[in-house]
Structure formats: structure tokens, C-alpha cells
């Protein structure tokens, strides 16, 4: 009996909103958590700036080849006439800056630095994003399973994380990169180097994200909505994918964004050490190695890849911090 009565009272409640809308005021609308986070994110100037830079970088990396074609920038074209062979440095001031070569040329072969920075961007971003995806995939699966099931599963996964964190990553990366021969996984040359870098970096960075996901899962598991779901007959996989995952997306997104710059730096470090991307392929780390050999003759060469790495890492970090503040304001 009460049901129809309640329905009419409910529609009566709805009327004031309709009246408001009729009076020319915008209707009061519910906002989802995503919309609220977006409003909060837009207020954070630094994060928005970081986001814009990141978008530009991604566009630059994705469109590297077309850009080079349109503006006639060849990263591997030698311009020996622009280099002074006696000084082993570009002719002219500021590392050979000119209208044709806005960032100058490299002191060894006179290659255009703008072209090489653009060429290096897609390598850096591809390795960093790829490695981050690998670590997010492994970290999220193992972290959620450990956090949700607990007990011996948690003990095994946690010890595994400790082992990986204690591993001398740099030594492992150097020896692995040096020992992988052409033809491994059916890949040769550049694709092989990129695949090895993604695998090595991604495989050793997952415990960081795994620990965060595990801790978040453990705290979510105790919330009553999980118990409510169980009391309706839900099993583990349903609870993990339908109840827990939507709550984990925000922290995963934030830490993935913060992991990308770390991986960019790591890729640069490996290339700098000569075990990453091999020349003549342009990469930011490789350019730094090159510049380090010639800093007395041409100091400016070092600033170009250095600034590229600096701006990229800073932009990703600002974006990640902004995302964290917007998506998870309590963790500030």
C-alpha cells in the first residue's frame, strides 16, 4: 500500500527542480566523481601546464616521422661543412645555431640537433610508457591478489617483491643487454633493443606499483561494501573486478604517471652507459654520452638532450602530482 503513495511523494519532490529549470536557472545536476576530479584538476595551474607539455611531447613522439618529413629534418644527415675539424666543434656561436638548425648541430658530424631530439623523443617515450605498462600489469595483478586473498599468497608475493627490490637492477640490465644477441625473440637491431629495455625496466619496477596496489586493496577489502557484495553471493573475481578495481583506477593512474619519468631517466641512464639504444639511432641518453666526450669543445651540445629530459620528467611529475591531488585529495 505504501508504494504508490511513496511514488507520488517522490514525484512531488522532483517538481521543485522542474520549477527551477523553468525559471531559467540551470538545472541542478549530479556530478560523477570523475567530473569532480576534473574540476579540481583544472584549478591546479602547474598540473595543467604539465599536462599540456605531456600532450605536446606525446604528439611530437607519435608524429616524429611526418614532422621530420614536412620540415626536412633528417636526424642522420651529415653536415661536415658546419663542423670545424680542428676544434671538433660546430662553426659559429651557440653550437652552430642558425635558422636552418635552430638547436645547432652536433660537433662530430654536424647532424641537426632538433631532428635528433625529435627522433629521440619517440624512443624515450615508447620505452618509458611500454615499461610502465609492463610494471602496471604485473604489479596490479599480483598486488590485488596478494591484498585481497592475504595469508600465504600475500606472504609469497610480498617476499617476491622484496627480492625484486633488492636486486642489483643496473648490473642485471647491463649484463642482460650485453648478452642478448640479434635474433632473440625474432627481433634484430633497434626493435630488439627497445624490447629488451621495456622488459628489463618494466620487470624490475613492478614491485613499486605492486606494493601500493596491495596496500590499497587491503584497506578496501575491509570496507562494508565488499562484505555486502559477498552477502549477495559474489565471489573473488567479481569483487576484485567490479568492486575493488573501480576504486583502484585512480591510484594506479597516478602512480603510473609518476613512474613514467623514472623510467625515462632509467632509459637515458642505460643508453648513456652504452647498453640501451645503440648509435646511430638518436636517443636522449645516447646524445648525452656523445656530449660528455666533447664538453670542453662544445658545452652547448649537452644542454639540448639534457633540457629535453628535464622538461619531459618535470612535466610528467607535475601532471602526476596534479592527478593525485585531483583524484585522491585525502592522500595529500
Amino acid at each position, binding site marked *: 500500500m505504501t508504494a504508490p503513495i511513496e511514488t507520488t511523494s*517522490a514525484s512531488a519532490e522532483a517538481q521543485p527542480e522542474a520549477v527551477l529549470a523553468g525559471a531559467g536557472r540551470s538545472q541542478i545536476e549530479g556530478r560523477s566523481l570523475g567530473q569532480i576530479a576534473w574540476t579540481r584538476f583544472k584549478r591546479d595551474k602547474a598540473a595543467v601546464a604539465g599536462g599540456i607539455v605531456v600532450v605536446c611531447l606525446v604528439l611530437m613522439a607519435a608524429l616524429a616521422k611526418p614532422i621530420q618529413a614536412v620540415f626536412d629534418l633528417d636526424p642522420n644527415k651529415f653536415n661536415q661543412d658546419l663542423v670545424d675539424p680542428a676544434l671538433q666543434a660546430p662553426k659559429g656561436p651557440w653550437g652552430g645555431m642558425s635558422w636552418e638548425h635552430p638547436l645547432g648541430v652536433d660537433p662530430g658530424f654536424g647532424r641537426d640537433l632538433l631532428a635528433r631530439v625529435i627522433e629521440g623523443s619517440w624512443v624515450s617515450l615508447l620505452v618509458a610508457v611500454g615499461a610502465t605498462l609492463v610494471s602496471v600489469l604485473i604489479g596490479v595483478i599480483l598486488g590485488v591478489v596478494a591484498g585481497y586473498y592475504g595469508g600465504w599468497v600475500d606472504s609469497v608475493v610480498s617476499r617476491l617483491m622484496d627480492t625484486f627490490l633488492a636486486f642489483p637492477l643496473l648490473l642485471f640490465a647491463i649484463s642482460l643487454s650485453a648478452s642478448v644477441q640479434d635474433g632473440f625473440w625474432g627481433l634484430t637491431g633497434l626493435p630488439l633493443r627497445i624490447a629488451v629495455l621495456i622488459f628489463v625496466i618494466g620487470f624490475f619496477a613492478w614491485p613499486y606499483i605492486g606494493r601500493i596496489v596491495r596496500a590499497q586493496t587491503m584497506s578496501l577489502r575491509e570496507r562494508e561494501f565488499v562484505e555486502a*557484495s559477498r552477502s*549477495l*553471493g559474489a565471489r573473488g573475481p567479481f569483487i576484485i573486478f567490479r568492486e575493488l578495481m573501480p*576504486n583502484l583506477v585512480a591510484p594506479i593512474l597516478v602512480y603510473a604517471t609518476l613512474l613514467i619519468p623514472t623510467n625515462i631517466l632509467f632509459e637515458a641512464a642505460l643508453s648513456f652507459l652504452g647498453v640501451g639504444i645503440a648509435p646511430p639511432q638518436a636517443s636522449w641518453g645516447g646524445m648525452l654520452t656523445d656530449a660528455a666526450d666533447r664538453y670542453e669543445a662544445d658545452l652547448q651540445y649537452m644542454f639540448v638532450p639534457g633540457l629535453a629530459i628535464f622538461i619531459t620528467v618535470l612535466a610528467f611529475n607535475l601532471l602526476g602530482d596534479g592527478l593525485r591531488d585531483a583524484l585522491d585529495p585525502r592522500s595529500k
Partner: protein
Amino acid sequence: MSDDATDLTKRTDAPATTEPLLKVEGLVKHFPIKKGVLQRTVGAVQAVDGISFDVRQGETLGVVGESGCGKSTMGRLITRLLEPTGGRIEFEGKDITHLSVGEMRPLRKDVQMIFQDPYSSLNPRHTIGTIVGAPFRLQGVTPEGGVKKSVQDLLSLVGLNPEHYNRYPHEFSGGQRQRIGIARALALKPRLVVADEPVSALDVSIQAQVVNLLDDLQDELGLTYVIIAHDLSVIRHVSDRIAVMYLGKIVELADRQPLYERPMHPYTKALLSAVPVPDPRRRQSARASRILLRGDVPSPISPPSGCRFHTRCWKATAVCKSTEPPLVELAPSHRVACHHPENAPDQVPTDTEPLAGTPAEDAREVPAADGAPPG
């Protein structure tokens, strides 16, 4: 089972004296305490330690007790969110004590739960429509007219605007959220609803609304409730029968009227005397008769011997320390576990020497100096 037959004939005032909907016998839940590298069990928290009761079709059983007495654990045991250590749970004559998750699944339709905290019992990332529609999806039920229509009907049933289907939990107040939780629990038309502190997280004015909603829904849908609470006024308002728990045991189980008018267990009496009195003229006399319990609830890891209440009871004697009192029927459908009950003949009249070190009559609060109790 002859005991039960006599019990049933005595309960003439009960709403329906048919087969009980839920039958609990000697239910035990011990949480092991593990220590060290080898995770050896060094002890156990005896959260629920042998309780027996029936819930009859259509009635409301109130379960009351102070924090940590095991009432929430009891609620999670009868909904089988926890695995009992011992004892037996029967739902509609079917033994569900040790059913696996899969075997329990079809029964979940009939036994539902309302949770305490309306802020943590709704997934913040799901819309109200998803939350209230989850029971249909999980049980593979396609209701008449589709899930969306059923959800909107449920929302209006609990007094919410059905147009708020697409909103998120954070857009609602605590009372509204609790209504959403109730709508979810009622989605599959359960037989038994276990409400674990359904109103203790709400403002007092909202508590009344939610309690009355539960009452109306019971009349309308013929629900059976087990309502767990620590608030005696809420329990008094909603319950037909009341079980009082202390340290994992039921100490008194009776119909509402007799329990509030003639409490037999000293613990029940102390609890009732502690209910705040809003009327300032009556407050003085209420304060004069207030019984202040000394000390804390003992640890459920090593509960006291004999009667578990003897460490805080002003009537305790030697027998209380040595022998555990059984839960016996001292008046029609009024069961109590006490050697020296109030409002009933003493069970061990020979033992009169108060236990050394127990708070005797001084447990009663001395009236405040500014107002003498009216003669």
C-alpha cells in the same frame, strides 16, 4: 526435541508459533591468535561462545549488548559471512552451518544484511542504480519489467526519488544512504534480514525515520528481522523479543514487555538503568536507581570462569565463580542465565556469602549532593 515442544506451547503470546525460520544451537566462533614465524596458535578470541536461539517467522529479534560482546560476529555467522567454529545454524529446517560459498549462493536470496556504516557500505564508484541492481545481477534474476524498473520501484519503496537512479553515493546524506542499503537488502525479497547496528551511525532524528521505515517494510513485505544494536531505546521500539548478550553468551532472552518491566539478569538491569532519561523531573529518580558497573568488560581471550559477569556483578557469590549458570526458562518465554536473578526466585538460595573483592552494594551510584532522591 521434546523440550522444544513444551517451549512452543508456552509461547502463547508469540506472533506465529510455527516452525522457527532460523534456529541456532550452541553457536561458537573463536578467532585464533597466531604468533611468531611459524604462525602457531597461541590462543583464541572467544567472540561467540555457545549461543542458542530461535527466530520465528515475522518477528523481530533484537540483540543488545555492549561493544565487543560478539553481537556483530553473531550477525555475520547467521548470514554465513563468517565460518562458525562450532554449533549448528538451521534456516527453514536446512542445516547451513558449514555450507560452502557456492552452496550458500542460492540461499543468499533469502538472508540479507543491512550494514552499520552507510558511508562504507556503498561502493563510491558505483551509481545507485548499479548498487541496488547488483543483487539481481549477482543472483542471475531478471525481474519483471527489467532491472531498471525494479530498482526504481525499490527506491520509491524506501522513500527515495527514483529519478536519482544515476547518482553516486556521495550525493546523498547518511540517512538516504542507509535507505539505499535497505533497498539493496530488499531487492531479492528476502525472508530474513539481519541488520547490524542499522541506525547507530545516523543522527537521532534520522534514526527514527529509518527505524520506522524498517517497521513499515516489515508489515508490508512480511519480513523477519534480527536487529543488532547497543541502543536500548531503538531495540525497545522495534523488537518483539530481545536477546541480551555479554561476552559471547546470551544472558537473557525474553519478550519485550517482560524484559523491560521485570529484567531478571543483573546485567540487563544495569543496562536498563543506564538508559538516559530525557525528562529532567524524572531524571533525579532515574539517577538514584542507576547501577554503575565497575571496571571493563573482561578480555574475551580469557573470559572469567563460571558466570562471565561475576567480576562486575554486585550479587556474585561463590557459585557464580565456579559454575556457569544455564540459560533456563524462569517465567513463560523468559529465559535467563543467572544463579541469583532479580524478579525471580533465587536459583541457589543456599549460597549467600558475597564473593570477596566484588563490588557489593556500593556499585549503586551515590545520588548527587545537589538533589536528594524523592522519598
